[in-house]
Each structure stands twice: as structure tokens, then as C-alpha cells.
């Protein structure tokens, strides 16, 4: 796919420097190699103005940020750009505005692949701290949070199951591919947040591109988590107790792919991005997830209507939670504040009179938000009610 953009460039002169021959067309502007790289860098760095070098601070007061790395195009490019940025700061001022902790969350069954990928990245960008954690450590890092632990289906034989067993039991209980993807994503986010807080990071710099944020907006809407959108899309303090930033929010996914293709081959080697066609391959609705659907949708919209993608993100960014209405009541799974304590899928106009109501509806002591209730089955019964 990235090759397509390069191929679509004509022999026109770069619209910005007016010197070089353009290599691709970016939002209807033909750009040369350097100007395109600058375009991507500027978009990212502009978002990080609050992280400029602070000469008043002493050297041991170095600010720390956490960068979660998935080895996908976005987070890897973000690391690449930040690494360049810190090098520039260092050469100009002798110090940097912040230090980076890179955290890689190992996917289940891929621990060794993650380790070797992380080694490659570390060799390429040796100035930063690297950690890799398996996903099940979320149960270890949040030990006192019994509400998360309470979501794990209990087994009669032992209550002190290790975190790995807990994760296995929790995921084995999920009813669908969508639920599976959703719960893993949620746990991953919680692990990242928890790790960042425990390691004195003041912000998390997520790699999400414009396209990804638009996908997330519609996917979360479809999952019934519309209430939480401001906390998932906006830069700044989050109710998770740490700042969230999305430095690549103004860069489209296809632009990142072009960037990687045009960058030094070393960057390409670090990226493990599923091919764009992969999301379309699954025709069975059983294996398709809501996230897949949205990914597929925005891959096509991005192609011809990039501004519509940006506009979705910009619009969602305008939604705001009135400070007065931030609830103290949290969802046990995603840990987001639940407005008005409206847990579960009942208690609003749309649940009406549900067809089947089993008396033991709630077997978890933990309370879930509307969206998480859809992903985590409420009953062990065979009949699962919507």
C-alpha cells in the first residue's frame, strides 16, 4: 500500500522547498523526501510543546514519559521521531526535555518474538530505558485492586492462582472475538497506566495516528462506551491519574506507512505491521471484531477522504466531561469513572424488559460499565442475554 502513494507522485517539484522533485503527494501537495519527513516530524513535535527543555530544572529532575511500543507502524515511528528529537535537543542545548521509558507488553504466546524485536529496537535507539512485561502482570501490578481480580472466574481448587492462570481463565470465559479483543486491549491499557505510575512517568505518549483515533471513536461508540470518549481521544490529564498524549494525532496512518517506507531501512526492519489486507481477510462474522470493522472502514475512508477522518477526531475532541459530573465510581475492568454510577447494561431506556432474566444475574462482585458488561459475560448460563 505505501508504494501506491509514491507511485502516484508525478514529476512535479516539491511544493514546499520548490527545489527537489516530489516523491509523493500528501493531502494534495507534492512533497520531496525531506519536506515530507519534516512534515511528519513537525506534526508530532508540535504536540509536545509542554515537553521543551526546562533550563530551570536541575538535571536530576528529569521528566519521564512512557512510550508503549507495539512494534506497529505508529508507535515505532513515534519512538523514531522522539529519538531524533531528543538527539537534536541534546546537540543544541546539551540536555533533553524528557527521558523515555519504553514499555512493550508481550502478547500471549509471543514472548520470545517480543524479546528479539525489543533487542533490535534497543540496539537502534540505545539512549532509552526498555522494559517488557507479559500481559498477565496486570494482575500482579494491581494487586490490591480486588475488583479486577474479582472479575476472574473463580475455580474451586485454588484461590491463589498465579497471574498467568488468572488471565487464561478470564479470557477463556469471553463470549466472542469482539469481547476477546476488547478485554485484552483494556487490560493492556491498564497495565501500561499502572506501570507508568509506578515508574514515576508523568505522561504516556500513545502512538495512535489520526486514523487510529477515528477508528477508536467509532469502535468505542459501537461498544457502548460513548461516555468515555473524551478520556480516550484528548490530550491532557486523564481520570486514570496520569496524562495522556497522542503526538501523532494529526498524522494519518497511510502517511506513517509512507514515512517508514521512505526512512532508512533500519526503521522498516523494526516495524511489524499486519498487512492492510489482513483485516479484510476474515469474512466470517464470528471471527471479525468490532475493532476490525472500524479499521477496515477507516482504511477505505482514509484513502479518498482524509479530511473526514481528521474531522471525526477533531469533533470528538470537542466533547467534554463537565468536571462536576466526574464520578468516583469506577468500572472494575476498564477503571473509567462511570457517570452516575450507571453500571451494567440495565437501568436505561434501551434495556426495556429483557426477554430472559436469570435470578443470578450478577455473579461478580465487581461492577462493570455498560461497554465492559457487553464484553464480559454476566452469567455462566448458556443463554446469554444481550
Amino acid at each position, binding site marked *: 500500500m505505501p508504494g501506491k502513494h509514491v507511485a502516484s507522485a508525478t514529476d512535479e517539484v516539491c511544493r514546499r522547498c520548490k527545489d527537489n522533485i516530489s516523491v509523493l503527494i500528501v493531502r494534495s501537495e507534492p512533497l520531496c523526501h525531506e519536506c515530507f519527513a519534516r512534515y511528519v516530524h513537525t506534526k508530532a513535535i508540535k504536540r509536545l510543546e509542554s515537553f521543551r527543555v526546562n533550563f530551570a530544572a536541575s538535571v536530576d529532575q528529569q521528566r519521564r514519559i512512557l512510550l508503549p511500543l507495539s512494534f506497529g507502524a505508529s508507535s515505532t515511528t513515534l519512538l523514531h521521531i522522539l529519538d531524533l528529537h531528543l538527539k537534536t535537543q541534546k546537540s543544541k542545548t546539551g540536555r533533553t526535555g524528557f527521558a523515555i521509558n519504553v514499555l512493550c507488553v508481550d502478547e500471549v504466546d509471543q514472548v520470545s518474538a517480543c524479546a528479539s524485536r525489543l533487542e533490535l529496537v534497543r540496539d537502534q535507539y540505545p539512549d532509552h530505558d526498555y522494559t517488557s512485561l507479559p500481559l498477565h502482570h496486570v494482575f500482579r501490578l494491581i494487586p490490591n485492586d480486588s475488583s479486577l481480580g474479582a472479575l476472574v472466574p473463580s475455580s474451586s481448587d485454588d484461590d491463589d492462582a498465579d497471574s498467568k492462570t488468572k488471565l487464561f481463565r478470564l479470557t477463556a470465559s469471553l463470549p466472542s472475538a469482539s469481547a476477546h479483543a476488547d478485554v485484552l486491549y483494556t487490560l493492556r491499557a491498564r497495565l501500561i497506566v499502572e506501570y507508568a505510575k509506578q515508574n514515576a512517568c508523568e505522561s504516556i505518549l500513545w502512538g495512535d495516528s489520526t486514523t487510529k483515533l477515528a477508528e477508536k471513536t467509532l469502535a468505542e461508540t459501537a461498544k457502548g*462506551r460513548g461516555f468515555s470518549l473524551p478520556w480516550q481521544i484528548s490530550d491532557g490529564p486523564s481520570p486514570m491519574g496520569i496524562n495522556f498524549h497522542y503526538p501523532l494525532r494529526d498524522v494519518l496512518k497511510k502517511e506513517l506507512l509512507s514515512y517508514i517506507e521512505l526512512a532508512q531501512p533500519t526503521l522498516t526492519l523494526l516495524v511489524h505491521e499486519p498487512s492492510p489486507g489482513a483485516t479484510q481477510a476474515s469474512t466470517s462474522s464470528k471471527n471479525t471484531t468490532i475493532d476490525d470493522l472500524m479499521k477496515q472502514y477507516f482504511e477505505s475512508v482514509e484513502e479518498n477522504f482524509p479530511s473526514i477522518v481528521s474531522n471525526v477526531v477533531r469533533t470528538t475532541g470537542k466533547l467534554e466531561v463537565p468536571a462536576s459530573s466526574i464520578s468516583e465510581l469506577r468500572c472494575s475492568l476498564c477503571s473509567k469513572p462511570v457517570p452516575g454510577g450507571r453500571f451494567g447494561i440495565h437501568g436505561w431506556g434501551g434495556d426495556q*424488559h429483557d426477554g430472559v432474566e436469570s435470578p443470578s444475574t450478577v455473579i461478580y462482585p465487581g461492577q462493570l460499565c455498560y461497554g465492559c458488561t457487553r464484553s464480559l459475560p454476566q452469567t455462566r448460563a448458556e443463554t446469554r442475554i444481550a
Partner: protein
Amino acid sequence: MPPTPCALCHTNRALILRPKDHSKLCKTCFITVFETEIHHTITTNALFARGEKIAIGASGGKDSTVLASVLKTLNERYDYGLDLILLSIDEGIKGYRDDSLETVKRNAEQYGMELTILGYDELYGWTMDQVVEQVGKKGNCTYCGVFRRQALDRGAARLGVKHVVTGHNADDVAETVLMNLLRGDLPRLSRTTSIITSTPSASSDPASNTNIKRSKPLKYAYEKEIVLYAHHKNLDYFSTECIYSPEAFRGSARALIKNLERVRPSAILDVVRSGEDMAKLVPGSDEGCGGTCSSNRPVAEEEEGGCGSAAGRTVGGDMASVEKQLAQNETATNNDLEVEITSPRPSTKNGAVPLSNGKKAKKGITPKKTNKQVMGQCKRCGYLSSQEVCKACVLLEGLNKARPKNKIEVGYDVQELQQRDQGVDGVADAMQQTSIGGE
């Protein structure tokens, strides 16, 4: 393998896989559950008052037919004490509306309800067929939607009815939520999920057509269940799609909703829930209640709901023009130019025909602030409007300007020929203008 018993009565054989939650029900239980849920919607939202006269916006399609049937049943079963009548709007689309109106006439007899049919030609002097002839197929849904909204209110006012119910279902609402997200239209996003809207009266005249309450009792009902209900109750409805195509944004959102439903049946309801929650997050929205409390009714949509027919034909037309508009705004912002976002209004000299996305483009992108609409009255027709002249009047003005004043007759007189040329030019002009505005 023994037949699966119904999950509710445990006696009859389950014949229906409920689209909403995939529970297995027998026919009787499905019908009861479907009706009970609508009763639940009506009572928890206090939609009706005893003795109220209600006009059911009836198109002859499945939604409004089911709505009429269910309301009749519930009115009798729970003794709502409502006076139900049917109100149909004839858009004047040959081969589509004339057949469906026949269905409505039969429904009126079957349900013993009084029926009034009101035509676009009668109200506006234009049938939809004539409009399409004039503006082309692109963007004609805008005309139809704007005209229909007022038509129902005007019809209701004529009949002395203060409350109109429409057949908008959960799929329609979910689709509109996604569509407004895609179009970046926050003000509309905050209104679409309300179950009750009203056009508050700007005048004290009780016969004023601006004081009509609207509600959607089927807001939480799945389209598929509506079809099932109609089928199992042997309801007489007319099923065909409007022959004119829907807006691309709506088509795109509709396709997405259908795919979501396939992946997770509850998704339609989940989008509706998200929409209700997001309505509270729109800055400046007075929708603290998410449209669920009736004391604080959001102002009705000038063009809501689309026409709910025509299957999703994908991306095209208006998405391209919005894309272009947004791209220009971006360039302007990047160049630090003043960002005054104007709708793609054609120049005034040739009698502009601004279409709905003009207004949206203006609102969607204003930095950080969401415009709050101030409602007043259209200075032409007195209908409630946020603009000086309401949308219907603006559209009509455009249409009327391009309509040849004199009848064109075939003749060999030079002057007449010239006149005809002008007439044709006028139409061509109008088409061009419309495509600039609404493409």
C-alpha cells in the same frame, strides 16, 4: 434432537431467533415481548397523556405500519385513552408513493383510524418528481427531508393535533449517531437521540404549526424485529425502497451499522446508548438529561432521520464535497489565515441554492466552540427556524427561481424559441448551482 422450547414460556416450540439478543422464542411470546417493550418505552418516557390526540406519521412502510398497529393494540390493552389518527404525506414520487398510499388507505380501514393525506404539491407547489427533474438525483433527499418535516407539522396543525409520532427505529437512530460523528456535527449529535423533540411555539396562536411535539416510540426497536412483527402479525405494508438514492454519509453509516449488527447483535442498542451519553458531553448542550426527561425537550431537527428507505449505497457524492471543504479549511488553518468557515454557497447573483451540508460545514469546524442555535420564526412562512428564513423556504426560493415563468409551448416563433432557450438555461443553471452546493 428435540425441538428447542421457547425461552419465555418454556412450552411452545421456539421458532424465532430474536435479532436483538438471539434468544429463542415462540411466535406468541415474541409478539408479546415486542409490544411490552414498546409499552415500556412509552410509560418510562411518559410519551402520552390521557385524552391526547396523536397523529401517526404513516408512510405505508413497515415502520409506520407496525407503529400504528402496536399503538392501537397498546391503547386498547393498557387503556391509554388516546385518540389515534393517521397522517400521510404525499411527496409525489410516482411508482413509489402512490402505491404506498394505497396501503395507508387500507391500514386506515383495518385499524379504524381517520386518515389525512397531504401533498407536497399542495403545500409547496412542487412534487418530488418535479424537484428531482430540476435538481437531479444528487441531494434531493435534502429537499424531501426538509419538506417532510414541516409537512407533518403543518398537517398536524391543520388537524388540530399537537403530537405526531414517527416510526424511527433503533437502526435509524444508531445510523444517525454514526453519521453525525462522521460529518462532525455535534449540535445534531446532541439532538438525534432524544425520544421526544418539539418545535416550541414562537407564537401564542394555538393553531400555529410550530407547537407540535414529536416522539419516536420505536426508538429502541430493531428494524429486523419490526419486520418480524409485521410478518407474524400479517400486517399489510408496502415494502419498496425510495427510487432516489440516499445521501452518501447516511448510506455509509447504514452499511456500518449492518456490519456491526452482524458482529454483535446488541451493537445497535449500544450505539444508541453511546449517543445518549455523548449528547451530555456536547459543550453548551442543554441536554443534561440526554433527552430522556420530558421537561427539557430538545428542539426538533429540521431534517431528521432521512427517509429510512434505500439500502446503503456507499461513499460518494456529498462525502467528496465535505472532504474538499474540510481540506480547504485545513490549508487555511495551516497557513494561519483567518478561519472563517463559510458554507459552499454559490454566489448570490445567480440565486443560490444552499443545501444542508452548507450549514453543517459552517458549524462543524468552528474552533472549540459549538454554536448554540437560537430559534426564531421564518419571516416567510412563520415556521420555527434558527435562520431568518427557514430551510424549506430557502430551498423553495431556489426551485422557484429556476422554474420558467411561462409555459413552454412548441412553436416556430423566434421569440418563443428564445424564451425556451432561456427556460432551459435556467434549469441548467439551477442544476449547476445545486451541484456546487450539494454535490
